[in-house]
């Protein structure tokens, strides 16, 4: 693991990604301190440009501070991104592991199930789920989780299958170790690193899906999110480009950072690279 850490830190992309993400996390953490009160508060004149006193990223149509919104939005985006990824991991890894380790019939059934879920256009499904369950932070997390698991399940299944076919697993079986113990002690630990990598990238795509949902008016109206800000700012894009450009940049940077970290993790956790 130390090797991996070293490789990760040696990876320039990973360091840049970590730095950006750290900034985003700090923004999220400091939001209530720097901007106490709600990002919905109408603090100044509407449509003030960036750099004006008291609102360095400008204000939107209702005089709300964009900077406050971007910082508070970081909390929402990160929260939804991570929570829905965890939900997707829970479903995906469980199903994938069962498919990869169980018998042919169960495997076939699960694979069919995954395929069908992959056939359904996933963003449309997310829209449908959120609309049906009415938009709230929990339904959004649920919907994103439900549309994000198939790739994770697929990956887990392939990983588990390939690890399970390795000779050390057969050796463990010959040593008399039980199936569950083999799965948990030998298969999963060896299968997990690409899943971690893909999982970390899933956070980025979850943030993007959340933004798109909010943009289309399917966000939780009680949480200021970046997608909402772009959606609200988009209509005034000529009068106030700052209202949609800054939250857009925030999404972009966060997603880039997470992908960079994912790539660095991939290199770090890939024994081929880190150990040669």
């Amino acid at each position, binding site marked *: 693991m130390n090797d991996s850490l070293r490789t990760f830190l040696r990876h320039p992309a990973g360091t840049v990604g970590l730095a950006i993400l750290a900034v985003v996390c700090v923004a999220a953490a400091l939001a209530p301190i720097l901007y106490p009160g709600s990002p919905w508060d109408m603090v100044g004149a509407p449509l003030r440009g960036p750099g004006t006193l008291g609102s360095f990223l400008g204000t939107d149509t209702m005089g709300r501070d964009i900077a406050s919104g971007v910082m508070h939005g970081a909390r929402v985006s990160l929260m939804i991104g991570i929570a829905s990824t965890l939900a997707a991991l829970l479903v995906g890894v469980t199903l994938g592991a069962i498919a990869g380790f169980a018998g042919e019939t169960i495997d076939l059934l699960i694979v069919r199930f995954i395929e069908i879920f992959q056939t359904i256009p996933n963003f449309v499904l997310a829209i449908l789920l959120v609309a049906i369950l009415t938009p709230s932070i929990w339904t959004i997390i649920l919907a994103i989780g439900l549309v994000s698991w198939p790739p994770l399940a697929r990956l887990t299944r392939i990983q588990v299958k390939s690890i399970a076919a*390795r*000779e*050390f697993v*057969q*050796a*463990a*079986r*010959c*040593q*008399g*170790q*039980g199936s569950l*113990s083999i799965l948990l002690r*030998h298969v999963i*630990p*060896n299968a997990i690193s690409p899943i971690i990598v893909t999982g970390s990238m899933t956070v980025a795509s979850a943030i993007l899906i959340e933004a798109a949902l909010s943009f289309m008016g399917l966000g939780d109206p009680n949480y200021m999110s970046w997608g909402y800000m772009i959606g609200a700012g988009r209509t005034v894009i000529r009068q106030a480009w700052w209202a949609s450009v800054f939250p857009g940049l925030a999404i972009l940077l966060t997603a880039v950072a997470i992908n960079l970290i994912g790539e660095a993790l991939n290199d770090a956790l890939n*024994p081929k690279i880190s*150990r040669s």
Partner: protein
Amino acid sequence: MTLLSVQNLSIVLPVGADRSHAVSNVSFDVDENQIVCLVGESGSGKSMIAHALLGLLPAGIEVDAGALMFQGMDLARLTPAQKRAVRGDRISMIFQEPLTALNPLKRVGEQVAEAVRIHAGPMPAKAVVAKVEELFEQVGLPDPPRLRRAYPFQLSGGQRQRVMIAMALCNNPKLLIADEPTTALDVTTQRQILDLIKSLQKTHDMGVLFITHDIGVVADIADKVVVLQKGGIVESGEAKTVLTQPTQPYTRMLLDAVPGRGAFRKVGRSTTPVLEVRGLQKRFVTRQGLFAKPREVVAARDVSCQLAPGDTLAVVGESGSGKSTLARILLRLVEPDAGEILWHGASVRDMNRKDLRNFRRKVQIVFQDPYSSLDPRLKVGESICRGPMAFGTSRIEAKRLADRWLERVGLGPQAFDRFPHEFSGGQRQRICIARALALQPEILIADEAVSALDVSIQAQVLDLLNDLKVEMGLAMIFITHDLRVAREIADRVLVMRQGQIEEERPTEELFESPRSDYTKRLLDAVPGRSFFAARAGLGVPA
């Protein structure tokens, strides 16, 4: 006349590699119409030399000193365009893996035609086709007009290698570089390809630089030998001289490490078998879909054999003969379609979970690939401990056991806390043996356990297994494709072919007077057989 003269060649490795130079200060000549063998174990730098000749070294690895004189020019100092003009024209090359060396998406005829066109200039399509078919004819490919249109995956390994040779020959090269061209092939195919290369070399008056790790192959084809070790030349000279009167200990060691030259083992008196197999049947059926025709491979057809305590049975066969499946069926890692497996008279197939565990404890296996048979995330000691602990041994006791076994296989207890990647292949295979034996089995199944190892390491591991066997009174099933290894270690040999037993005899009988034609062909194909037979006859000290 000297065709190629390698002078003081040094190849530098990128920073951070395990040594600074892949090859240093290597000099040798290849004359016209001569086969020069570069022989050495893995890591000796022999392939690097071959790649350096054609300017195909991987990025970051460069020739930093010396000259590669070929027909008056220094190959190391050519411009890219000059290099291309030489490649495939005056010097051509064939590689180890004929499957990966051919583009899977192109018809083989087209791949050969491409090589023809590059150097021959514009040519009518018909002429190219004729040329390709002629080349196919030359390398002994059946039905050239049909085969020309085949894709690589439709050909057998031997056929693919013939295509590679045809491609190499198409412009009548002066020098042919063959980089382990037969290593990936079955022994009978290897024999054919070796013969083909040798005859083509004669008819085309080529110089051949033949790279191999197998000194048996060297004995069969070499005019001249260059022995490499860790990037330097140990010894070189006329093949006869070097092989019969090696001056260097390393060369001698290489020669002595070749298995299967000692006295035959005495066949133990047969007692009650510990393990008996009757009428085993296994077909693998892969379903393609709901209505698609399933594909079928027969892995075992009416296989029966038995194993007595202390007995060593070698199961020999070419790839696809079903020998590895047999091992897995014995352990019930694969369920057979029919037949019986009896363990001390009790049916293994009818065992419940608990009995099966106890059975497996007594029958341990060592796998072929030392890299994938250890959990990369577990300390090796831990891997060994897991087995005894699964049967209720306390952790402290298991650790003590592991330490003892690590010591016994020659690694020492300090190995306990290290990870598999810190060990070499041979060391890993020792760890696997320790892991298997820590459970005090009655039978040890070795599934190609030494095939992936260099010949010197192979000899050590075989010795270790032999010692342990005697020490513990183990019965052993030794699965191998290498008849020499079988002869070295087995009391009895079982020859398999396409899931069927060809013949099963005591080792000596089988080697001295094989009954089946197939066995005879196998024996004939063993590289360097006559040389080593002669060498043994000459009484060269073992």
